[in-house]
């Protein structure tokens, strides 16, 4: 009996690993969250949390190369504020950074949005109390808690769309990001800026404030500087009314809040060349410009030490730089040859 149970469990674990999506050659955003946990040295000065406006717009490699700051982006597609909070809680179990940077765009969502994004934010986390709480906070109506504990219950029907990739990456995955940064080198200039719809209510919701407060408290407890930012993506529209509320919150709590939308000229962002999807996200060139600007600010404001002298760290980061350049060159080559980048061509990624 016990043996039968054991065999069943082994088979199911095997199947679960096989059936879960791998996100290795498309929908790369799905691979973001889990990458952090396979980092050898979890010692970062700065942790970014937030949605695509962090993992597409900031480059930790640049931050290292320019300022010797170590950082990791814990971003995922349409990461909502409860995801962010619990992700931070989880991260703090592994390390205590000096600064946590949170992108405030998700303050606009006060309820769970979409099963697929929940999955991308949650499946990559190892089982922990934070994860369980995050699941509970995130589920949309059609979702079942247990399917997060046993993802095979969610992905079982993928058996008829398995590919070589699913077998290849069953137990070990490739690295996709550069400390959480998902690189894109292609360009799609801004042509028109969609007009912002009038909203019936500009009040950011209480639920979001609750999580923001919890996040503020958590950082305070751990002696971490919390920095609120709004990345310079011109869409979705960041309303002035929202900006004021965040401004107020920051000053009440003694936090630094930077709305980069106001500094695009200073940063030098050119929306004709620095975005890959007409203004939603920056491309590599834009991200590097923004990172350089922000890095200076960070090291000035918070006295972050330049750690490029640290031999052990340098060794790791040299490898990371090489990988960064490698991917960059591959993307340029694909772009030249095909006119697009394979990994990002299969679907329109809107967020």
């Amino acid at each position, binding site marked *: 009996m016990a043996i039968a149970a054991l065999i069943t469990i082994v*088979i199911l674990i095997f199947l679960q690993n096989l059936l879960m999506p791998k996100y290795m050659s498309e929908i790369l955003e799905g691979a973001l969250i889990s990458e952090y946990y396979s980092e050898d040295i979890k010692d970062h000065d700065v942790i970014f949390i937030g949605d695509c406006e962090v993992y597409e717009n900031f480059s930790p490699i640049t931050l290292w190369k320019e300022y010797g700051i170590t950082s990791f982006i814990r971003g995922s597609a349409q990461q909502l504020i409860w995801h962010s909070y619990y992700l931070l809680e989880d991260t703090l179990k592994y390390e205590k950074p000096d600064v946590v940077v949170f992108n405030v765009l998700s303050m606009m969502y006060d309820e769970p949005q979409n099963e697929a994004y929940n999955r991308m934010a949650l499946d990559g986390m190892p089982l922990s109390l934070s994860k369980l709480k995050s699941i509970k906070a995130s589920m949309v109506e059609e979702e079942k808690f247990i399917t997060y504990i046993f993802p095979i219950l969610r992905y079982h029907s993928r058996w008829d769309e398995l590919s070589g990739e699913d077998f290849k990456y069953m137990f070990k995955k490739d690295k996709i990001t550069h400390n959480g940064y998902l690189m894109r080198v292609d360009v799609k200039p801004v042509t028109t800026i969609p007009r912002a719809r009038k909203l019936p209510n500009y009040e950011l919701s209480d639920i979001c404030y609750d999580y923001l407060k919890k996040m503020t408290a958590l950082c305070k407890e751990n002696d971490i500087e919390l920095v609120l930012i709004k990345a310079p993506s011109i869409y979705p529209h960041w309303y002035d009314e929202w900006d004021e509320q965040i401004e107020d919150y920051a000053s009440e709590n003694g936090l630094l809040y930077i709305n980069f939308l106001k500094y695009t000229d200073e940063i030098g962002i050119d929306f004709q060349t620095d975005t890959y999807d007409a203004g939603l996200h920056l491309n590599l060139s834009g991200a590097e410009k923004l990172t350089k600007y922000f890095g200076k600010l960070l090291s000035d404001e918070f006295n972050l030490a330049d750690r490029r002298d640290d031999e052990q760290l340098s060794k790791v980061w040299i490898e990371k730089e090489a990988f960064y350049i490698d991917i960059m060159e591959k993307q340029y080559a694909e772009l030249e040859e095909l006119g697009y980048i394979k990994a990002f061509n299969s679907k329109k990624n809107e967020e």
Partner: protein
Amino acid sequence: MLFTSYNFILFLVVLFIIYYLIPKKYQWMLLLLGSFVFYSYSGWDNVAYITVTILATYFVSLKIGQLYEQQDSYIKENKGSLAREDRKKYKAKINAKQKKYLLLCLLFDLGILAVLKYTNFVISNINSIGNLFKATEISFLDIALPMGISFYTFQSVGYLVDVYRGKYAPEKNLGKFALFVSFFPQLVQGPISRFDDLGEQLYAGHSFDYKNVSFGIQRILWGFFKKLVIADRILVGVNTITQNPETYQGIYVFLGMIFYAVQLYADFTGGIDITIGIAQVFGIELKENFQRPFFSKSIVEYWRRWHITMGTWFRDYVFYPVSISSPMLKLSKFSRKHLGEKLGKKVPVYLSTIIVWSATGIWHGASWNFIVWGLLNCLVIIVSQEFEPLYAKFHSKFNVRHNFFFRLFQVARTFLLMCSIRILDCYRNVGISFKMYFSMFTNWNFGEIFNGGLLGLGLKKSDYIVLIFGIIIMTVFSLIQRKGSVREQLTEKSDVLQYAVGIALFVSIITFGAYGIGYDSNQFIYNQF
């Protein structure tokens, strides 16, 4: 709480653990509590309905039982002095009282069922007649049918009639009686149990028995396999065809018929497997409800093997009482005198048959579809009864009764006949059902299904592969079952084999089950009855 929901599985596990931890004398109370929890999930108003039925049936059956006791003690007391005539008179007096109570309670129990289930059907019929005269329409009653009402009402009625007939004394403990009516595994879709089969088992107390528990779990797994891997998968195809009668005609109707047969079988027998398996895990043996019905060689045999507890319920509580009631016996006398011995004898039998099948039809659903469905079943049964002498002649001439191919022919004929009648179960109304049925013979579009038609029904190639394997497995299990319980046979062969089958079933349910996001969670078909 659906059988196929995670909540239900959790509920079962918790109940199971507590059940075998507490002293045996409290086990039945736990089952009652569990049934109550299970039922309250479907809404408190539903709890109210079942409670009312339980209370009414309980008190009336007690009263009838008391009258029996009164009668017995009276006869005993006056044993010497009572003349036979007087005794008869006294019995008749008591019986008349009992009858009054019986009728009152029947009217009440069945009345609730009738009002909830048939009011809107009656209204819609009145409205369509009213329309002819331009009358204003009556608005529909806005009540959802309580879960399992047909089943618990029938079970209560059977109990009440049995008490009235003196088959057994009424249960004195209200809680115990309530458990008999509301025992949760069978509440949703049967089987319809009899008190003398089930009662004692529910109250007896059971110690943990490895074989019962493991057999029960195996049975549950088998039920889930049928329900999740087969029924819920093929359902998409059935719905696509039957809900778009303009698009899918001819060969598609045939395909829909076969699909529906598979779906209904896998869904209903799978549900019953789960029910019986759960009861077995608790050490309780429920009556079987199916006996490989699709292997039947005639429609009469089919109805002996399909939904058995419903068939025997109708036989014992409708067919027999009606057919040997004194008006019927009088009719028999009359018709024999006027129509001749041969024909006259048949009149009461067939009349009773028609009554029973109309009742069976309307029980299945409040619509003309089901009434016509019932009457068609009835027609086939009567016709085959009439052809009996012809068959006998045929068989005396050609000795094929035991010929494999002839039997295969009989099985196929019965299957297709039942599929044809069941078409009324699929389409919106009687007219469309018949139109679609005849399109099979007029619309020759056989080629279409292989020109992409099959893949246009919402089923992918992989779905067909799973379905084909699933159906083969079901058939093989049925064939093995002819020699007795599959689980017994597996255990006898070897433990390893038994475990291997168990593991394979479990893993296939998890992997190939049509559940979760992307599939609608489907209620068991029989839930609605």
